[in-house]
């Protein structure tokens, strides 16, 4: 499986492989229109954003109007009408992360990268570009402040760690999610979201330390759920590992 990373030629038609994969997505659903959200994810992986010809193609394949597709593409935050960089960096600035330091991280990154919200660093030809955005709560509040890179968790960040993170990304160094695999490109991530797995499910840990807080305390204290009637009950953490 390869993901196009080259410049997008919007003049011609979409390539046959992409059209075939769009049809594969449609086949997953009892009613074709349900495929629209993953189809737009796939188009973003191919074209780096939602383009006019991508919208036309969805409309053709689903038998709906381009206006209906466009209405969906503009509703959801993850769909971008302007080109996204090699990496999408999202800083959580919802209340809890903001208070814990997300606001300071976002300010530092805007300054360091010299971009505003939802803007992309210039592509200098050699290195990787970064699109910076503040994001809403990403369901990792026990790891605040949280930064997402291509929707992978980077837990417990500081302005300094976040600055190092974006520098490493721009310099092409290997970056690993704190609870996930090596960071892939934004386009590769979008392909997974379209339902085409990339075989990285086994990478990274099962849980971070915060996720295991209660389990660890229960083991220390010898606490467990009530015993079950049948042998081999699986609820007792004392029996585990």
């Amino acid at each position: 499986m390869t993901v196009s990373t080259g410049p997008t030629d919007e003049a011609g038609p979409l390539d046959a492989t992409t059209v075939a994969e769009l049809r594969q997505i449609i086949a997953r659903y009892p009613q074709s229109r349900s495929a629209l959200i993953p189809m737009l994810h796939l188009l973003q992986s191919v074209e780096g954003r939602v383009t006019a010809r991508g919208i036309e193609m969805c409309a053709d394949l689903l038998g709906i109007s381009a206006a209906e597709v466009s209405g969906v593409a503009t509703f959801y935050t993850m769909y971008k009408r302007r080109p996204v960089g090699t990496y999408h960096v999202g800083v959580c600035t919802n209340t809890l992360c903001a208070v814990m330091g997300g606001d300071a991280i976002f300010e530092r990154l805007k300054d360091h990268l010299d971009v505003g919200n939802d803007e992309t660093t210039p592509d200098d030809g050699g290195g990787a570009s970064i699109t910076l955005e503040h994001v809403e709560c990403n369901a990792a509040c026990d790891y605040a402040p949280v930064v997402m890179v291509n929707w992978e968790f980077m837990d417990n960040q500081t302005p300094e760690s976040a600055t190092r993170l974006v520098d490493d990304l721009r310099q092409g160094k290997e970056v690993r999610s704190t609870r996930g695999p090596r960071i892939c490109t934004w386009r590769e991530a979008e392909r997974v979201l379209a339902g085409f797995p990339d075989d990285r499910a086994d990478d990274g840990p099962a849980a971070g330390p915060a996720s295991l807080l209660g389990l660890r305390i229960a083991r220390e204290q010898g606490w467990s759920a009530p015993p079950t009637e049948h042998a081999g009950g699986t609820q007792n953490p004392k029996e585990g590992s």
Partner: protein
Amino acid sequence: MVDALTPVLSAHWDSDRPWTLESYEATGGYSALTTAFALSQDDVISMVKDSGLRGRGGAGFPTGMKWGFIPQGPEKDGTVKPHYLVVNADESEPGTCKDIPLMMATPHTLVEGVILTCYAIRANHAFIYVRGEVLQVVRRLQRAVQEAYLAGHLGTDIHGSGFDLDVTVHAGAGAYICGEETALLDSLEGRRGQPRLRPPFPAVAGLYAAPTVINNVESIASVPCIVRNGADWFASMGTEKSKGMTLYSLSGHVARPGQLEAPLGITLRQLLDLAGGVREGHQLKFWTPGGSSTPILTDEHLDVPLDYEGVGAAGSMLGTKALQIFDDTTCVVRAVLRWTEFYKHESCGKCTPCREGTWWLVQTLSRLEQGRGEESDLEALLDQCDNILGRSFCALADGAVSPITSSIQYFRQEYVDHLENGGCPFDPARSTLFAPAEALA
């Protein structure tokens, strides 16, 4: 006497690669299928009703009763519509962070719950609608479903039972409103995520206008242990009307934030004791019991039983059990303004009181936060809240006014201080996790 913490859903999160089928089956995973297939569908529904399981996504509706609303038999015109199960894995309520670690560590618990639920409600196709912004969780779900097919837990004639089931993992595209169940259905049908008028309820006309059950991840993941260990075992935990164990998520100014699985009815005081208390040298100022849409509480409420009734009696809601802890360095006006900006951004725009009202709330609150308003603006703010609450199709707007009205109830003087001070009297650097020691002195 039941122990203070009762890990069931989280019991194997620290095992070796617990997300794999091999690991899940080694701890008894998928054994509940044999038990369920030996029972009638209605008996499985009865078992879940008897367990007292209530929805873990916020509303607390009895799960078995919801399943019982699915009409059986043909329609009036003689046609038979398919039934669907849709799992709400769009965890986005600010502060809420329980379903994501569950699906990351043990996605097969959810898949087994999906199979049991679909058997009970006679559905042959289920969808797991997971938010798109959690890539590794999407990967683990995709893998778990693939493994379950290969093992014969999904597909046709599962384990010779004659029961067929397909499961589709569907990643969303970034919209808080899609956690609202009817907006989620519209989104799953390939539309803008906007809530529907009810009735008809999804149990009668849900996905593709067919009978549909929509349940939260934690609710569905709680079904396997009920089928395996019995309704009485589950109901032996918790309080009279709030049965079972659940995941409490502690975040913010806590010595050790994280997930704690306990019987319903534990108090914040107990949970904080286990988590090492509020950040050293500081006092608890305010907290949310179940996400930003549940009215905030204060240190007066440390001993409120965290079950559906107890938190309700204290003037808030149990919600998603997302306990966001803020200490005395936090400006409540700043916190509330940020939540309000979130609701304004996430309003889907369908209902005028929400679309326009959340915009006005941000305008008024911003002025107050910058110390530019007048004290009468507080009355204007409460009046705006009164004109928004209960006037839209869904609960987003109701959630938007909760932090405002509750913060004015408990911290009115702090709003006034902003006006008298000509701006925020707090130093935001002191509330950060990386605040230097001298800033905290």
